[in-house]
């Protein structure tokens, strides 16, 4: 880890790339807002999720479970399980960012997929912190503005099924899953998890099938030894 200060050109390149990621990701917020109100949450609840939970896959999971008829609390549990990957990111970033006290407490809120991706590969602490902050803050601002816009628009539309918004939820989950399917082991786990979830849908309360599928990850993680490429 080098503590060398950043050259102006490197600094502006990082800022530009990070803002680009922020704009692209923030725009998903429209779909989250629309899907959330279509799932039965109020505009205020939808905006609270984006402001306070602020980790996309977990938010989609919570409203997805509710949309499928699950208890809100099983939606929250699914959201927490998905949120565990941010813990993993934090473990990787902690020595790189090396923030303490109030800064760490604030930085934690914008610790998400994108801010991690834009900082974890940097070679200096300055570069990592800059990529993390510019990405995290720009995604946060745009995600919340877009969520509000999507929620209000979704509210005006009426029955979400007429616009296929129920199909949009599955597509959003698949798009989030897609980049993780490059590895064969992950594809096997994905198929097994879907099979387990569908297999117990007829008898389990809504929300439980998705949680049960997490057991597939546990079993596969414990039983496989080598990391296949």
């Amino acid at each position: 880890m080098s503590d060398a200060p950043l050259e102006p050109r490197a600094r502006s390149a990082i800022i530009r790339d990070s803002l680009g990621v922020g704009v692209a990701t923030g725009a998903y917020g429209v779909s989250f807002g629309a899907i959330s109100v279509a799932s039965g949450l109020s505009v205020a609840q939808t905006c609270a999720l984006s402001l306070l939970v602020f980790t996309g896959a977990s938010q989609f999971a919570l409203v997805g479970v509710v949309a499928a008829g699950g208890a809100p609390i099983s939606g929250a549990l699914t959201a927490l399980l998905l949120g565990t990957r941010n813990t993993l990111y934090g473990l990787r970033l902690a020595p790189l960012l090396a923030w303490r006290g109030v800064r760490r407490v604030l930085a934690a809120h914008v610790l998400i997929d994108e801010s991690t991706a834009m900082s974890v590969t940097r070679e200096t602490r300055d570069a990592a912190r800059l990529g993390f902050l510019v990405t995290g803050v720009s995604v946060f601002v745009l995600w919340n503005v877009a969520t509000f816009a999507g929620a209000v628009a979704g509210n005006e539309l009426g029955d979400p099924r007429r616009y296929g918004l129920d199909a949009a939820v599955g597509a959003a989950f698949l798009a989030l899953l897609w980049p993780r399917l490059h590895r064969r082991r992950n594809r096997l786990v994905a198929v097994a998890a879907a099979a387990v979830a569908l297999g117990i849908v007829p008898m389990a309360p809504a929300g439980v099938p998705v949680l049960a599928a997490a057991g597939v990850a546990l079993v596969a993680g414990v039983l496989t030894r080598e990391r296949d490429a």
Partner: protein
Amino acid sequence: MMWTAVIVAAVGCYLLKLGGLSVPPWVLERPVVERVADLIPVALLSALVAVQVFTRGHEIVVDARALGLGVAVVLLLLRAPFLVVVFGAALVAAVARLLL
């Protein structure tokens, strides 16, 4: 009920983030922990796709949503952006419901 879920998710997800930044790195150095942590998002997202698209209540059903998912797969294979995938699937499902 819903607000409780929102607050539980908010507090929990924040603590999961802060925990990662605060926990000593040796926790991750256990390979089993790392593998399980890698696989949990895969399993959950896949289960969410399946339940979201192929169930209604306690029944397994194949309807316009499955068609939407098929379109999403094609769009992802074509490397379409996230929003195109999501709204493309919605559009096809909506049109299918109109026509069928």
